[in-house]
C-alpha cells in the first residue's frame, strides 16, 4: 500500500474536518473504552494477569531462537510445513508459490494485519488470484479499496449509510428495492454473499494470535467465525504469522488470552479461539489437506536486544489506539500505513524507516493512557521518545525546531541570562497585553493562537518577585 505517513499532518487536518469520519470515531468510545473498563473492573486480579502476560512474553523473547526451533520442529512432526521468510517479499513469494502449485483461483482470508504488512492481497491479485476478505469489516473496506483504519475494527471509520451504498454498488444482482436500513440487514447480506465465497475457495489464509511451541499449534481469535470457515473449507490452509507470536505452552497462551479480549473488546473471551495443528488427519471428514505456516521476520529479529524489544510483546488488542486522544480525533488512516495509533507510532518507523514515519512518534502528547491500558505493559511513550532521540541524533528533526531548541538550551544553562531574557520577554508581553488579558493573535505563536487565545503573563517573573520579597522590598 502507498505510504502517506510523511504527510501525517495534512492527513490529520483532513480527517479532523471530515464530519462523517468524526461521527464514526465517536463509536470507539461506546464500542471499546467503556466495555474494556467494565471488563477490567470485573476482575480484581487484572493487574496480576497483566504482569503474568508480560512475564511470559519476556521469557519467550529471551529464548526466542529455541522456542521457534521447537515450534517449527513440532509443526513438521505433525505434518505441517513451516516456511521462514526474512522479508515481506519472501513471504509474498512463498504464499504465491503455494497458491500456484495447487492451482488456486480464489483465496479466502481471515482477518490478518500481517498480510496487510506484507501487502499480500495486491501481490496475489497481480498474479491472477482473487482474494476475498471475509471478516465483515475487512470485506467492507476491500469493497471500497481501502485499508484497515484500526487493527481489530478495520471499518470503524465508516457509518452504516456508507456501507449500504457500497453493498448496493457491488451486490448489483440483488433486488435494488431491498431494505438495508438496519445493520442486521447489512450483516445478513454479507453473510449470504460470503458463504458462497467460503465454499468456493481453494486456499484459506489466516494470521495467528499465538503459535504454541509445545504442540506446533497456531491459534486464531475471532468473533465472527470467518477465520474458521476460511481455514476448514479450502484444500489448503496457510498461516502467515510473525516470529514473535510464539509462546511456550497452551498454559502460556491461556494466560495471555485472559488479557487479550478484555483489553480489546471488553469481552471476557472472544467467541472463537481456534487451535490448528497440522493438516486434517486420516479419518477426519473435514479440514484442509495441507497446512503451511509462513513465519515472517521482516525486521523483528533486529529489534531484540534494543530499546524496541518490548514492542515485540504486543498482542494487537488495539487498546492503545482506542484510548489515544490523537487516534480518537484523526482515525487510523491519517497515520499513513498499516499500523495506526501508539503501537503503530512505535512499530511503523522500524518497518518503513523513521525518515518516512518521523511524524508518528512525535504526534503524541505523551499522555501515557496507552501504556496505562496496554495488557502487556509496553512502555509506548518511552519508545516513541526513543524514536524522537533517534531522529534527533540523525538530524531528521526539523531545522526550525532544532534551532529553537538550541537557543532555549543556551539560555536554560545560564540562569542569570535566562532570568534577564525571560524578564524582558514577560515585560514586553505585558506591555502588549490586550484589555481582555489574553492574545487572540501573536505573530510568533500562531500555532497556538490559530485555535486558542493565549493567556497573557501577569507581568513579572516569579524569580524576580521572589528576589524582591527576600530583600524585603
Amino acid at each position: 500500500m502507498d505510504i502517506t505517513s510523511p504527510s501525517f499532518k495534512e492527513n490529520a487536518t483532513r480527517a479532523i474536518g471530515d464530519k462523517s469520519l468524526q461521527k464514526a470515531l465517536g463509536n470507539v468510545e461506546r464500542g471499546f473504552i467503556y466495555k474494556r473498563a467494565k471488563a477490567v473492573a470485573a476482575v480484581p486480579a487484572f493487574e496480576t494477569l497483566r504482569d503474568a502476560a508480560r512475564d511470559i512474553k519476556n521469557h519467550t523473547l529471551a529464548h526466542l531462537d529455541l522456542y521457534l526451533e521447537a515450534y517449527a520442529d513440532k509443526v513438521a512432526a505433525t505434518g505441517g510445513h513451516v516456511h521462514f521468510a526474512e522479508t515481506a517479499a519472501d513471504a509474498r513469494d512463498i504464499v504465491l508459490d503455494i497458491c500456484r502449485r495447487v492451482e488456486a483461483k480464489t483465496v479466502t482470508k481471515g482477518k490478518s494485519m500481517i498480510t496487510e504488512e506484507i501487502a499480500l492481497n495486491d501481490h496475489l491479485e497481480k498474479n491472477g488470484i482473487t482474494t476475498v476478505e471475509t471478516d465483515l469489516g475487512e470485506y467492507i473496506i476491500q469493497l471500497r479499496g481501502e485499508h484497515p483504519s484500526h487493527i481489530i475494527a478495520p471499518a470503524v471509520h465508516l457509518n452504516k449509510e456508507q456501507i449500504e451504498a457500497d453493498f448496493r454498488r457491488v451486490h448489483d444482482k440483488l433486488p435494488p428495492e431491498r431494505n438495508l436500513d438496519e445493520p442486521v440487514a447489512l450483516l445478513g447480506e454479507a453473510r449470504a454473499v460470503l458463504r458462497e465465497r467460503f465454499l468456493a475457495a481453494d486456499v484459506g489464509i489466516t494470521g495467528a494470535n499465538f503459535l504454541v511451541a509445545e504442540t506446533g499449534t497456531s491459534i486464531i481469535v475471532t468473533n465472527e467465525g470467518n477465520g474458521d470457515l476460511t481455514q476448514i473449507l479450502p484444500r489448503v490452509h496457510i498461516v502467515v504469522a510473525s516470529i514473535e507470536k510464539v509462546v511456550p505452552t497452551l498454559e502460556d497462551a491461556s494466560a495471555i488470552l485472559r488479557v487479550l479480549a478484555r483489553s480489546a473488546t471488553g469481552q471476557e473471551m472472544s467467541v472463537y479461539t481456534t487451535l490448528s495443528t497440522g493438516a486434517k488427519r486420516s479419518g477426519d471428514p473435514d479440514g484442509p489437506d495441507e497446512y503451511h505456516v509462513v513465519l515472517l521476520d521482516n525486521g523483528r529479529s533486529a529489534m531484540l536486544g534494543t530499546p524496541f524489544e518490548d514492542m515485540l510483546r504486543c498482542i494487537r488488542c488495539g487498546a492503545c489506539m482506542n484510548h489515544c486522544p490523537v487516534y480518537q480525533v484523526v482515525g487510523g488512516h491519517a497515520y499513513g500505513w498499516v499500523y495506526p495509533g501508539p503501537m503503530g507510532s512505535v512499530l511503523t518507523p522500524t518497518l518503513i524507516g523513521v525518515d518516512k514515519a518521523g511524524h508518528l512518534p512525535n504526534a503524541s502528547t505523551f499522555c501515557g493512557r496507552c501504556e496505562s491500558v496496554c495488557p502487556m505493559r509496553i512502555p509506548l511513550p518511552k519508545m516513541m521518545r526513543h524514536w524522537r532521540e533517534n531522529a534527533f541524533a540523525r538530524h531528521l528533526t526539523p531545522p526550525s525546531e532544532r534551532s529553537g531548541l538550541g537557543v532555549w538550551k543556551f539560555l536554560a544553562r545560564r540562569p542569570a541570562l535566562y532570568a534577564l531574557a525571560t524578564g524582558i520577554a514577560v515585560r514586553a508581553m505585558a506591555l502588549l497585553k490586550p484589555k481582555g488579558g489574553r492574545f487572540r493573535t501573536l505573530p510568533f505563536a500562531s500555532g497556538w493562537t490559530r485555535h486558542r487565545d493565549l493567556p497573557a503573563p501577569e507581568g513579572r517573573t516569579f524569580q524576580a518577585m521572589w528576589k524582591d520579597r527576600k530583600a524585603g522590598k
Partner: protein
Amino acid sequence: MGDSSHSRPRVGLLVTCLVDAMRPTVGFAAVDLIEKAGCEVDVPAQTCCGQPAYNSGDRDGARLLAEAVIAAFEPYDYVVAPSGSCAAMMKQHYPGLFADDPHWHARAERFSAKVFELVSFLVDVRGMTGVEASYSGKVTYHDSCSGLRELGVREQPRKLLGSVAGLEITEMKDADVCCGFGGAFCVKYPDISNAIVGKKADNIIASGAQTVLAGDLGCLMNMAGKLARDGSKVKARHVAEVLAGMTDRPAIGESE
C-alpha cells in the same frame, strides 16, 4: 528564617518555567501552602527541568539541564514543583538519563527520591487533610496526565478542595483524558491539539462548573485559551491558587 526553624524540612521550590514567566501567583501560592505544611521554602536560581529537550529527543541537552537542576536542589530535604509534568520529569525520568554514568545515576536516584508534585507533597508527605480557604461556586478538576499516570495524583487535590469553604466539586466527563497540550505538541500539531482540547472544553462546559482547576499551568493555559476562544465564561485557575486562598488575582487569561 530564624534558627528555630532547624527542625522544619527545607523545601526547594522548582517553580517551573511556565509559572515563572506567566503566572507567578501560582509560585507564591505554592510557597504559602508548603509553609503552612510546616516547611521552610527556598527558591534557588533555576531555569527549566529539561523536559522540552527530553521530549524533543535531545537526550544530551536534557541531561545537561538535569545536572544543573540536581546540583541546585541537592541541599534540600525535598524538591517540590507545582506541576505534575515537571515533577514527573525529575522523579521518574532523571535517573534514566544517567544510565551509563554510575556516579551521576546514584546522585540522580537520591535526588529523584526527594521530588514531589505540590499537592501530593502536601497530602502524602506532610499529611495535610484540609486548608483554610474559601472559594465560591462549582469547580471541576482536570487530571493532568503526568501527575495522574506517572505520580498517582488523583485523590489528593480533590481531598483538599473538599475542605475549601463554599466550593462544590462537580466531575466532568473524561476528567482523566488529556487536554491536548502536550508541551511542544500543541504548536507542532495545532489542529490535532485543537480537536482534543475542543472535546475537553465541551466536557468542562457540560459539567456546569464555573471554574476549571488543574495542577499544571500548561494544561490550564491550553484549556483557558480554548474556552475563551469559544466564548465560554468558565474561569481557569491552578489548584494551588484556590487552596492557598489567592484568588483575588484575575483568573488565567482574564484582565484586572
